[in-house]
């Protein structure tokens, strides 16, 4: 592995190397989509819009929705 090579050189202190953008992008897309889905169910489902009928989701996360700052009722 190339990074174990650099760390094995005595006295060599590399500057922190950035992770290439193209390596982060797929994970960034995956992470952001996942996060938005989670935030939607905590913050907006059965409030402004509704994917699941009824009020069970809204009632279940009710206290969290209020305390985490989302608009409610």
């Amino acid at each position, binding site marked *: 592995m*190339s990074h174990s090579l650099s*760390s094995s050189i005595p006295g060599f202190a590399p500057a922190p190397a*950035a992770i290439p*953008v193209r390596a982060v992008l797929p994970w*960034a897309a995956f992470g952001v989509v996942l996060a938005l889905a989670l935030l939607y169910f905590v913050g907006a489902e059965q409030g402004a*819009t509704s994917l699941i009928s009824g009020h069970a989701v809204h*009632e*279940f996360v009710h206290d969290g929705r209020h305390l985490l700052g989302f*608009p409610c009722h």
Partner: protein
Amino acid sequence: MTDVTFWASPATDGGSCLMAGRLLARGMVAGVIAACLAFLFARIFGEPQVNLAIAFEAAQDAAAGMAPEPELVSRAVQASFGLLVASLMYGAAYGGIYAVVFAFAYGRMGRISPRALALLLAGAGFLTFVLIPGLKYPPNPPGIGHPDTIQLRTATYFEVIALSVCVMAIAILVGRRLALRLGAWNATLCGVGLFVVLTALVQATAPDINEVPANFPAVVLWRFREAAIGMQIVLWGALGLIFGPLAAAVLAPKEGGRRLAG
């Protein structure tokens, strides 16, 4: 591969992709752990205020001759499992977003250790996602907010968060660009100044929403908002402190070499 790219990117492509994935996973884990602590805080300091607000709402309804609202989910469940699950989902979500930002920022924000960068970004996340949007649309307890305006309130709330993210991104990009010409200190001042001006512009143009009933107890409202902001400080503070060492371990092949050498 030239020597320059070799040293600029010591890890192989597969290695850096794996590294980004591990950072994302650890961010979400750190978010879940932080959410457990935030849940405890909210349970102790937030729930009493939620109960007082619900009691006020019920008294208002009774005085107006309305039947009490049916309980689909019991108050005990809402205040325990419901609050816990909502907190965990919120923590995992922002933990993930935060880890993605960390993966992009690491190595691009000057010489700063993973743990210091983790704490810095947690502060920026709290400011961007919570404090700035909350100044315009603060958290409200039950009994505040008309059901008819939920569409508008939800839309404006998410818009103000999105604009807050844009303002933070613009300020950082402009600050970084100016750093070469003005030096780090002056460039940071310019970035902060731009952030303040753009934030003021966003907050002044977003519609005002005030649906607090005239007779709503002021102390309950204040204590509720204190608890809500405290919960977020616990969440983001813990996220930054927990993610730092976890991220440092992922980046260890580079950092470990320095630690051994130094």
